[in-house]
């Protein structure tokens, strides 16, 4: 076996091991993510403040996950952001609510409030 062939064989073996390792890592992460709640990475969040402030929105988001085409659920999440004073997030979510149902009265009213004072 020449030096060159040995080098190529080692490189191929390393590549194979890397691919198998990545497949294994992916399987582990997917199996860990299978049960409720979905892996929003809350478990690995580093800042407690962010985690606490996100929780009410995360539960409303899970409701959207369960029924993704519901304008009502997007409107509820938008209203929660608006109540928390997070106007930009509110307008982003309410825009989706209005895409599903352009006549949604609560979403229209909240969207107008969220965009008040926006450039």
């Amino acid at each position, binding site marked *: 076996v020449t030096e*060159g062939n040995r*080098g190529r064989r080692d*490189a191929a073996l390393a590549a194979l091991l890397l*691919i198998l390792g*990545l*497949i294994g*890592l*992916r399987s582990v*992460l*997917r199996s860990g*993510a*299978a049960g409720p709640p*979905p*892996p*929003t*990475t809350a478990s*690995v*969040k*580093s*800042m407690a403040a*962010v985690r606490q402030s*996100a929780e009410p*929105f*995360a539960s409303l*988001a899970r409701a*959207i*996950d369960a029924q*993704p*085409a519901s304008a009502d659920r997007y409107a509820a*999440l938008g209203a929660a*952001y608006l109540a928390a004073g*997070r106007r*930009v*997030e509110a307008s*982003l*979510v309410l*825009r*989706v609510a209005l*895409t*599903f149902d352009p006549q949604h009265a609560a979403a229209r009213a909240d969207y107008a409030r969220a965009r008040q004072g*926006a*450039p």
Partner: protein
Amino acid sequence: VRIALALVLAFAAALRWHIHGAVLFSPWDETWYLNWANAVAYDGLDGFRASVRLWLDTGWFVPRPTRWGHVLLSAGACRIGGSCGFEQLAALSMLAGVAAVGATYLLARTLIAGPAAILAASFTAVSALDLGLGRRAMQDEVVLATALLALYSVARLAGRRPAWRETLAAVAALTLALAVKESFVVMFPAVFLLRWRFEGPLRITGTDVALLAAPPLLYLGGLLLLSGPTLFADALSQLITQTVVGTQPGSPVDTVQGGPPWRLLIDLLALNPVVTVLAVAGLGVLVATPRRDGAAARAEVKDRGAAVLAAAVVVSAIALAMGTKNARIWVTLNALHAILAAWFVWRSVEQRAPAWRWSVIAGVGVVNALLGVSIYQRIFGANPGEADAVSLTLLRGLGMIP
């Protein structure tokens, strides 16, 4: 060759302009891409940070705003367009589609013969998948154009010590490709192959380190600058988890993007039959051709570009097969197939008389164009709301299942 390239680009632009519009945009991904563009176009940095916070709060059903390259490009399209609607994002897709045709030519020219590069560009110009995606407010055509430009920027440096400006341009192109879609990282083995090109023993130089390490760091640096240090750590954590996991297990998205790796062969055959068959034939020729040893191997450089491309296609396919099996996600590989297919056609006729050679090339180009436009019409043109190209859509559109 220049006139032929100009004709292919003009045809690609005219075709995309003709089918532009008359699209029903989706309340899913397209609405969120528009949302991110609006947030940045009208609220600037605050808008970007709000987008990231929203994505962190809500998890899976919101596409990633961390693709800051696409967010900034689409916000720029909104600024230039004077308003921010689906139409501005669709126009960005259309322009990116034409740019992708030019980028296919540039990459092909560095790897195979010039006339074959024109044929490769014509394959991308009429690809049903690219035509379908190029009229929508999706990210995919921008992903394709930036990925091909990044691969070209590296391929042109192969086999020599590049000037620092060229290295810098390649690093910038690779960073942009990552910033448009972070999953471009799975094509980094292909980037490495294009740089090395099997020329001489494997040696890692400073240029190689810069090309492979700097773009991911610059992408993350851009995210850090835009999102701020408070959000960055959480964003990075969520980004890694979602990238590795792929899709939310058990979700509707997961169920339409699953299946065995060879699902892609079926989907690409349905979408792009001529190119896929020719690319597989080209791969077969490269595998079946006996290897030469020593001086003969060093002298035999004619097909090296195609061999590098084939290796890049194989390693990218393996990496991509670990993720979602949706033809839309494989749009870059579809363009690499086009180059391999064009090489196979060229190699089959290059020793023949010129009249015969050009007749075959023109014939393949015309047949593929007619098929490409026809497949586009049946799958996407007849369905203005069709944003995706999952197997069921393809087979039903082509009348293969009821």
